[in-house]
């Protein structure tokens, strides 16, 4: 069950990776990066809950906070432009 869930989660993370790779504009790439952050957080939480590593849940929470801050910071930076 644990292996199946993790493999399916990795398979789910392939389309955001493709959008991050080929996205025509900055906003498409940013959307893909935010979506990939969600998948990585879920993978950390699933590994922590299935294997019983409680410390990985704190890592997942910190990763979610840092991913949100990075998304908002890059969005604000791209909104301001080269000035």
């Amino acid at each position, binding site marked *: *069950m644990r292996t199946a*869930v993790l493999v*399916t*989660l990795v*398979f*789910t*993370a*392939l*389309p*955001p990776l*493709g*959008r991050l790779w080929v996205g025509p*504009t900055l*906003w*498409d790439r*940013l*959307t*893909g990066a*935010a*979506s990939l952050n*969600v*998948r990585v*957080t*879920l993978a950390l*939480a*699933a590994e*922590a*809950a*299935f294997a*019983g590593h*409680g410390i990985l*849940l*704190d890592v*997942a*929470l910190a990763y*979610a*906070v840092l991913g*949100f801050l990075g*998304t*908002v910071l890059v*969005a*604000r930076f*791209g*909104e301001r*432009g080269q000035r």
Partner: protein
Amino acid sequence: MTGSVFLISGLALLFLGGVGLLRFRGPYERLQASGVGDIGGAVLFLVGLILRLGWSATGGILVALILFFVFTGPLSTHAIAKGAFVRGERPHEE
């Protein structure tokens, strides 16, 4: 059993959001598919984890993670959409 149903439906919703992110036409359509699919799929997945593995082991932090996703998903979506609109991206005309 119920936890497995929640886990599988969350994974399916994440996959459908990814397909929408890959196949839609403009930045706003992709943003909508990504936002809806990610938040719904993540909440369903974490509820499935809680239901499957019991409340006592890791329940509190998983609930904190659910609340974090619910509150910050629309914020990041709005930040990306506002940046795209200010920088001159316009939705497609039908």
